[in-house]
């Protein structure tokens, strides 16, 4: 049997396992020591009246051996779990670096080519480059989504605190989806409160959130469908609503919409490209920014997603 801990240096252990000091095997061993002393005394005081000294010794020994065995099993399995988590988070970190660096390289080089060295490129060549860019954006998005999910699961998810001009950001995302909007013949109306104050949140991630809601509203809409995007101020919150006239979410699936990897059956028929991660990530980003998200949906009539964000 592998006995409880080999190295008693708490700080080193915490670092190696990637846990806090009170989660290290050495610390838990100390706690185990206290428990043993406590239980031994309890057994002693409780039974000295009616037990002979020989029985008392045997009783104490049985109790101590029992606690040691159970304690050892618990500590070892916690150590194993910590090791697995550490490996997982290292893996996420490696993937994040090794995949994102070349993707960033492609994206920056395309930007470099288009913005500084596009003289002499003909229309066809420019179009091809734009296609490469679109594929690269899709791939980066996929990698980012997977990394976000891994980090959310590990509670290692970080969001910046930028000052966001939410109206400008909404307009940017609507423009970005322009090609898809035209292709699906969708009419988008934008209703915005005047003098909307800035909000606090992670600008890049908020762009992803908005893009999820808006591109969903386009993709799961009907031909000649409508979308209304509203940005309003309500007390100390900004309220954003995205309402479509699309296929809607069936009633029995509505409480699973924000689940990881969940895709509505009607959605999968209409659009094959999704992963079921978008809304899960969106909910996490909104909640981590101090906001809330909710929706109303009627099958075959449409869906309205609402979310709130704190105003600065």
């Amino acid at each position, binding site marked *: 049997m592998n006995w409880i801990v080999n190295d008693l240096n708490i700080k080193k252990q915490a670092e190696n396992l990637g846990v806090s000091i009170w989660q290290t095997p050495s610390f838990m061993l100390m706690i185990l020591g206290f428990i043993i002393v406590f239980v031994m005394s309890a057994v002693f005081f409780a039974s000295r009246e009616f037990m002979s000294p020989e029985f008392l010794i045997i009783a104490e020994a049985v109790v101590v051996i029992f606690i040691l065995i159970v304690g050892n099993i618990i500590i070892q399995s916690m150590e194993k779990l910590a090791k697995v988590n550490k490996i997982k*988070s290292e893996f996420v970190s490696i993937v*994040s670096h090794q995949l*994102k660096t070349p993707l960033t*390289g492609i994206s920056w080089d395309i930007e470099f080519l288009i913005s500084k060295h596009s003289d002499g490129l003909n229309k066809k060549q420019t179009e091809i480059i734009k296609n490469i860019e679109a594929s690269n954006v899709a791939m980066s998005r996929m990698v980012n989504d997977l990394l976000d999910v891994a980090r959310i699961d590990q509670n290692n998810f970080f969001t910046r605190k930028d000052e966001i001009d939410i109206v400008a950001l909404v307009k940017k995302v609507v423009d970005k989806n322009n090609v898809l909007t035209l292709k699906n013949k969708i009419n988008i109306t934008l209703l915005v409160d005047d003098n909307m104050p800035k909000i606090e949140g992670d600008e*890049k991630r908020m762009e992803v959130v908005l893009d999820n809601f808006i591109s969903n509203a386009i993709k799961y809409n009907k031909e000649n469908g409508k979308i209304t995007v509203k940005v309003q101020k309500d007390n100390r919150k900004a309220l954003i609503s995205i309402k479509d006239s699309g296929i809607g979410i069936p009633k029995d699936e509505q409480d699973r919409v924000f689940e990881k990897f969940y895709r509505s059956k009607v959605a999968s028929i209409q659009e094959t490209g999704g992963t079921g991660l978008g809304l899960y990530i969106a909910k996490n980003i909104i909640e981590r920014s101090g906001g809330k998200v909710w929706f109303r949906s009627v099958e075959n009539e449409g869906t309205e997603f609402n979310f709130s964000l704190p105003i600065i």
Partner: protein
Amino acid sequence: MENKKILIIEDDLTLRNVLAEFLEAEGFKVGVASDGEEGLEMIKSFNPDIVLLDIILPKKNGFEVLKEVRNYKEKLTTPFVLLTNLGSLDDIEKALELGATTYLVKGDYQVKEIVEKIKEILFKEKK
């Protein structure tokens, strides 16, 4: 702006070159280093107004660079912008604790957006 000096410590050749060209086009004087040790030398010799620092670097990583700079400069006055593709809570908190001004996840930004962020920081520092 013409006199402002920017040091890029980045091991990826493509990213380093693209960023340097964009910044030079804006009139900045740009120095580059491809590993942590070279970066530390350049911080002394080039004396930049702002440092763009990657985290995963050969010889000395970004965290070690920050630690060493803190050792020989009592107070970190030069802004350090972590330009990284790591982006987990642990990494970012560690970098901010070590005195980084801010961090940007490279892959999330276009080059021109990064240039804008750098200008914002330099402008704020000036005031």
